[in-house]
């Protein structure tokens, strides 16, 4: 009796398994993409993840992280690899590549632009690295609430560091990159010389001295979604922010936040693939897809970040309100690009000094 039930049950299960086998194996293909959360992750889910899932059948899960390479290094060090693809900045991409955390990406695999331009020419400079492919460029800016400050908001980086003229707290990312550059610029260093000065111990001290003048007024943030929240709650009068998050808060939460463009530091974001993961092939497929012309152009619908490919930039219609907010639009005020090589070589020492300065 039992034997018969067992064998017939087995047969049913077996038949079902065979019938659904292709379905099961396709459903099992899944990759995890770590990115910066908030409006930025939303834009990636809409422009990259969803079309990729529809096209390939690979499920894409997204997780948030803080941008620190150490989270990847910890996964590799313990052999417990949870992410497949990671969105990071070029300094971390170079450093992680050198430390063997990432897969090498063959640039000849990158598809040509939609207009036929070969990938090597289509991507902006510095967007193709041995282990990472750029997707967008964003700007680090100072933002403030126009509803509270009106026309009397800060006009320059010097104003950001001037607590006498603009009393109140300032939000700053808890990370030496960007704020060290800003401190030197506000202290009178020309943008072209910032990294030369910052490479010397005296330059680092100079930046910390400048930061000391506002230290008691700083509220530190760690996630990109925090600056708009800090502005909204009135906790800070102005804040270092990623410009897309400010635009997003204005659109979605009907805020009247203003962006002060002077001193903006532009930094690309890139995709890299963790070495030793179980889904390297699918992850590679994802990265090649996400950095192709159409997805990069589509992303601008959701967040005003500049696509890494020129062919994508050409595809953003003028009707897209985000177009006016792209960081590569010419604007008054100083602007510069981050020096990835500098941060790759110095981030370890700079983090150590920064942590010690913070604790004092």
């Amino acid at each position: 009796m039992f034997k018969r039930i067992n064998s017939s049950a087995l047969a049913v299960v077996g038949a079902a398994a065979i019938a659904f086998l292709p379905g099961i194996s396709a459903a099992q293909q899944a990759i995890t993409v770590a990115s910066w959360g908030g409006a930025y992750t939303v834009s990636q889910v809409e422009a990259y993840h969803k079309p990729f899932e529809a096209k390939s059948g690979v499920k894409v899960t997204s997780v948030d992280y803080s941008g620190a390479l150490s989270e990847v290094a910890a996964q590799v060090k313990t052999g417990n690899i949870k992410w497949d693809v990671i969105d990071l900045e070029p300094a971390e991409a170079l450093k992680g590549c050198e430390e063997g955390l990432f897969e090498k990406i063959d640039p000849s695999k990158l598809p040509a632009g939609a207009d036929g331009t070969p990938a090597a020419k289509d991507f902006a400079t510095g967007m193709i690295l041995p282990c990472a492919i750029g997707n967008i460029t964003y700007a680090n800016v100072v933002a403030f609430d126009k509803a509270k400050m009106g026309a009397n908001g800060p006009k320059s980086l010097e104003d950001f560091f001037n607590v006498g003229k603009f009393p109140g707290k300032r939000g700053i990312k808890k990370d030496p990159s960007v704020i060290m550059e800003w401190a030197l610029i506000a202290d009178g260093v020309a943008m072209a010389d910032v990294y030369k000065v910052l490479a010397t111990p005296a330059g680092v001290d100079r930046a910390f001295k400048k930061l000391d003048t506002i230290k008691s007024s700083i509220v530190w943030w760690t996630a990109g979604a925090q600056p708009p929240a800090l502005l909204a709650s009135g906790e800070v009068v102005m804040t270092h922010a990623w410009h897309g998050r400010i635009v997003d808060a204005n659109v979605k939460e009907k805020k009247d936040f203003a962006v002060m463009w002077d001193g903006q530091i532009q930094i690309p974001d890139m995709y890299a693939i963790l070495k030793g993961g179980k889904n390297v092939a699918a992850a590679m497929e994802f990265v090649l897809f996400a950095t192709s012309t159409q997805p990069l152009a589509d992303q601008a619908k959701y967040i005003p970040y500049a696509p890494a490919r020129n062919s994508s930039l050409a595809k953003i219609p003028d009707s897209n309100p985000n177009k006016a907010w792209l960081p590569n639009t010419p604007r008054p005020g100083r602007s510069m690009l981050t020096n990835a090589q500098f941060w790759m070589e110095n981030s370890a020492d700079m983090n150590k000094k920064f942590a010690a300065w913070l604790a004092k």
Partner: protein
Amino acid sequence: MDSEANLSQRLRKAERRGQLRAYALIAPLFIFVALSFLIPLGTVLLNSFYDPVVPNGLPRTVRALADWNGPRDQIPPEPVYAALAQDLKEAVQAEKHGSIANRLNVEESGLRTVFMRAARRVSAQEDGPWAPFFEAADPGWAQPGIWGTIRNLASPTHSLFYLSALDAKRNQDGSVGPQPEDQRIHITIYLRTLGVALTVTLMCILLGFPLAYLLAHLRDKTANLLLILVLLPFWTSLLVRTTAWMVVLQKEGVINSLLQALHLISEPLPLVFNRFGVVVAMTHILLPFMVLPMYSVMRQIPVSYVRAARSLGAGPLTAFIRVYLPQCIPGLGAGALLVFILALGYYITPALLGGSTDQMISYFVETNMSRSLNWGLASALAAILLGAVLVLYAAYDRLVGANNLKLG
């Protein structure tokens, strides 16, 4: 005689059987504690002095340096450079060079660059002479400094992490001295941690003692109701309570809005992201740990003792101080010790409600664990905290007596 020996033998046997049964009963708990507490703790302690990155990554170099054993102010001879070239080629092949470079950089800022510059080029070079090759890759290789650092790290067990946790370091010439001034932070942080924990304990005693006294002297029904109010926050998640304080204390939060509406203040008070916010929230969170042991001890103090003291002529204050208070000591001691030790290890509340100068030692354990990836230093910091707690417990035992503790 015979039967007596037999009897005691049987008794012992029965006792042994009972003991075995008792052991079997606690075995699951013991295994759980071993897996979840003793083994991780042991690993942490091991990590704090066992660090084989350099001897494993550069085995030939370490051996060649030991063979040469020259003075620390000189650069080593060619065979050491050749050994390093061989090690470096293998490390690059196995992609281990990054972790070696990072390990050297932890000891001495700037060595990552020196090491990586050589690592990037070494595979392209077939043969020596190696000393000029390394010097061309980075002039740092022609200085005795980096060799001193490698020699400091040559043994897989060392005390460098403990030195670093106590703001000292082993210099490249082999002597022990203080860290550079801008890197000396840990002792300040240990003192800060002690200070915050003491403040919170004092606040808990000040607030908890009258509350426990009230609870112990009310009618049972009212006391139970109030006790539930004490316990209610106890049942809420730590994170929820911490973020609730953020809402209450922030610039446009409940308290500031109220005070401004009442025109008591014109500018919002800075109540959060500073020491004040940390102490307030930690006191609130830890208060039940103080109230509960005190309450249970106070309830058991017979009222007749104080009455007897009064009838013998003691004033109310004398009766309280000389008769009532000494009987509260077991509860007070237990509560204070519990609150103090829990407060020492607090992480999430200071991280969320404190400013950058209010972070306690566990924050730096976490930073070194997940941001700087310096697990050795994190382990040493944690081991020193553990040692401090044990010392404090021993001191308490000496002064008050641990047998006197009463947790409820």
